[in-house]
């Protein structure tokens, strides 16, 4: 032990003694080498500082950077309608459905990136029916491509078709408690929502122009004007607009539902934006062998918000959608109905005024009408209706709101109707940000 210590000590002492003994040339070599090394290190450091920032990830887990955002949003309704059967005047799936209290939309929304190639979104909706039993619905579940070239983007799964403005919006983002009558008449109680695919293209124009084409099965109640067999009569025969229907299969490409849509946006000034859209939904229906439905729509959305708005207030928005439908109804000889074309059209126009922070006042006018059919059922279901709805909403934060709305309906075959609704929205969790 002692010996080893001495040995180490001897070496330590010897090293400084030895080094002056090294020849002069070697020393200059070493200095030169150190100089070279220093230069190289400097060059490397410089290079490193140039490329440093690539993909450092933020340490903490947050709403915006987690694997999946999850939110739960509830629309709770209270109110009264002059008609005992509220469904008569509030046919929308997510509308307040009865006098008293109702929950027609409690949605669990999930979204996030799947991998570098796909993003995904799912919306699972719970609602209570007249017996207060809970209904469950896979409202939307789709994947969205995130890395296609040439401004293309693909969507696949189950989703609301990109037609017009409100069809793709979820009820908690609506400006009124209920679905516009014209969307209900053309698309049924829950909008145009199907399994399918859609491709969209962002045109390389100076202003925003997006072209989309959706291809869907076009069947069932969520594609009301298309391959939908209607409801069973007392004899158990499925009927739509008085005609017995036959569920037809997909026999070729022409049996799919095609939904093309064009949207363009213009910044009129720094504080005003205008969005214009034109859409169509084209596909066969189940009332005959070769019967076809064509729905066309145009929509406009205008928004004013000053450059010094606080938390989004004040603002004014004006949204209008007009739709027209040609529904080729097949002949039903046993019911005494000829083949005919049912022509319907309708529109709604609504203004929302955010007059003071957290408060908005709104007014909506609606009109739907259709030509006279040989079928009494068709005439009743397609009766001319005019509706006016004023409302006022208080948003304590962007996660809750309380809305009071009044509807007055002028109806062709029935008495005028009134309804008053109070709606409370409350949302938990991190919800995906909404489009303009």
């Amino acid at each position, binding site marked *: 032990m002692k010996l080893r210590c001495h040995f180490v000590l001897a070496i330590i002492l010897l090293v400084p003694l030895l080094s002056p003994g090294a020849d002069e040339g070697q020393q200059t070599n070493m200095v030169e080498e150190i100089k070279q090394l220093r230069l190289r290190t400097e060059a490397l450091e410089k290079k490193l*500082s*140039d*490329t*440093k*920032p*690539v*993909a*450092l*990830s*933020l340490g*903490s*887990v*947050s*709403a*915006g950077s987690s694997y999946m955002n999850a939110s739960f949003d509830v629309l709770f309704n209270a109110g009264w309608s002059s008609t005992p059967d509220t469904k008569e005047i509030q046919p929308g799936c997510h509308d307040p459905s009865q006098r008293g209290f109702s929950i027609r939309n409690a949605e669990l929304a999930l979204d996030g990136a799947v991998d*570098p190639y796909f*993003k995904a979104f799912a919306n699972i909706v719970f609602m209570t029916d007249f017996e207060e039993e809970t209904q469950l619905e896979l409202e939307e579940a789709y994947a*969205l491509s*995130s*890395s*296609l*070239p040439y*401004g*293309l*983007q693909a969507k696949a799964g189950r989703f609301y078709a990109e037609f017009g403005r409100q069809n793709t919006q979820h009820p908690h983002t609506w400006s009124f408690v209920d679905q516009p009558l014209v969307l209900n008449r053309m698309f049924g109680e829950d909008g145009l929502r199907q399994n399918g695919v859609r491709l969209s293209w*962002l045109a390389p*124009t*100076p*202003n*925003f122009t*997006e072209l989309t084409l959706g291809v869907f099965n076009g069947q069932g109640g969520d594609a009301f004007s298309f391959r939908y067999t209607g409801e069973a009569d007392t004899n158990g025969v499925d009927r739509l607009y008085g005609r017995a229907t036959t569920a037809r299969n997909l026999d070729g490409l022409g049996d799919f539902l095609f939904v093309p849509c064009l*949207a363009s*946006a*213009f*910044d009129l000034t*720094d504080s005003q*934006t205008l*969005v214009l859209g034109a859409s169509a939904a084209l596909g066969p229906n189940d009332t005959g062998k070769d019967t076809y439905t064509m729905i066309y729509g145009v929509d406009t959305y205008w*928004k004013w*918000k000053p*450059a*010094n*708005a*606080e*938390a*989004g207030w004040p603002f004014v928005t004006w949204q209008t959608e007009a739709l027209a439908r040609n529904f080729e109804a097949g002949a039903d000889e046993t019911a005494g109905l000829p083949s005919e074309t049912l022509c319907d059209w309708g529109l709604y126009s609504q203004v929302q005024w955010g007059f003071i*922070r*957290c408060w908005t006042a709104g007014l909506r006018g609606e009109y739907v009408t259709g030509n006279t059919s040989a079928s009494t059922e068709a005439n009743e279901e397609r009766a001319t209706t005019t509706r006016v709805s004023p409302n006022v909403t208080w948003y304590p*934060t*962007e*996660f809750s709101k309380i809305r009071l709305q009044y509807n007055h309906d002028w109806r062709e075959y029935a008495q005028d109707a009134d309804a008053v609704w109070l709606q409370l929205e409350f949302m938990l969790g991190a919800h*995906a*940000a*909404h*489009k*303009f």
Partner: protein
Amino acid sequence: MKTKTVINTIILAAALLFGFAAASHAKLNVVATTPDFGAIAREIGGDLVQVNVLAKPTEDSHFVDAKPSYIVKLAHTDVLIEGGAELEMGWLPPLIGGARNSKIELGRPGRVRCAEGLVLLEVPTTLDRSMGDIHAMGNPHFMTDPVNARHAAERVGAVFSTVDPQNAATYRERLAAFTKRLDEKLAVWQKQLEPFKDRRVVAYHNSWPYFANRFGIKINLFLEPKPGIPPTPAHLADMVTRMKTERIGVILVEPYQNRKTAEKVSAETGAAIVDFAQYPGGVKGTEGGYIELMNYLVNTLAMALKNSGVSKEQKQ
């Protein structure tokens, strides 16, 4: 002969067209979410970059409309500069989703998140919205500290050099010049606010903790009862009492905030309202850039604190 002329014309036209296309693409295309990042990008990029800023300087940057025209701007950009600390969470994701631009995907060099590498203040221990509009990653208004702006400038400079290596030397020079100017100014600003160390100032919203930290001012009383919750009469009454007892003489108000509320409090307390802005151009005279903005902020605050009576000496 005729066909030859036609062909020649076509070739000439094509050449001109490509020439124009090349010329118009010669500049590096940059989008900044807010005007502070835009100003930094212009400092570093100069004439070599074309900068588009989404949020307006007077706008509430928590609530920017996701306008379709912004999607077009993002679709054609080479670089996107954002804070990345949740300030833009409510409007940037749908814009990026719509833009379909692989250059600005997360993890790509073209996506600059200026908060990366910074230690953010006020990171909440629990995420509970009963506490108001809180940010999981911490307070996102970090650019009000010039040291953080320096960090942002360095990141932007490095990214410009990576994405546009031909001009790397110019970017490096401009970055060095900017940080030198900033460092010099910072020393001046600190000296200017030195006499008012630990003085308390009221702000409408909690946008200024980084500024307060850097310059030793206390900005920790707010007209908003909780972040993002509009002022209530009860809270304002409480604030008036506190301001009177603590002899607080300055209220900071940003362009989008409710000036009337501040005026009411000012009328009752005699406190001065000082127009503050986080973004160059938010207040008149700050359009020049980040340093001009900071200059304005420090000058006006120093002036207001001086005029509001209680100086440090008197207090002791």
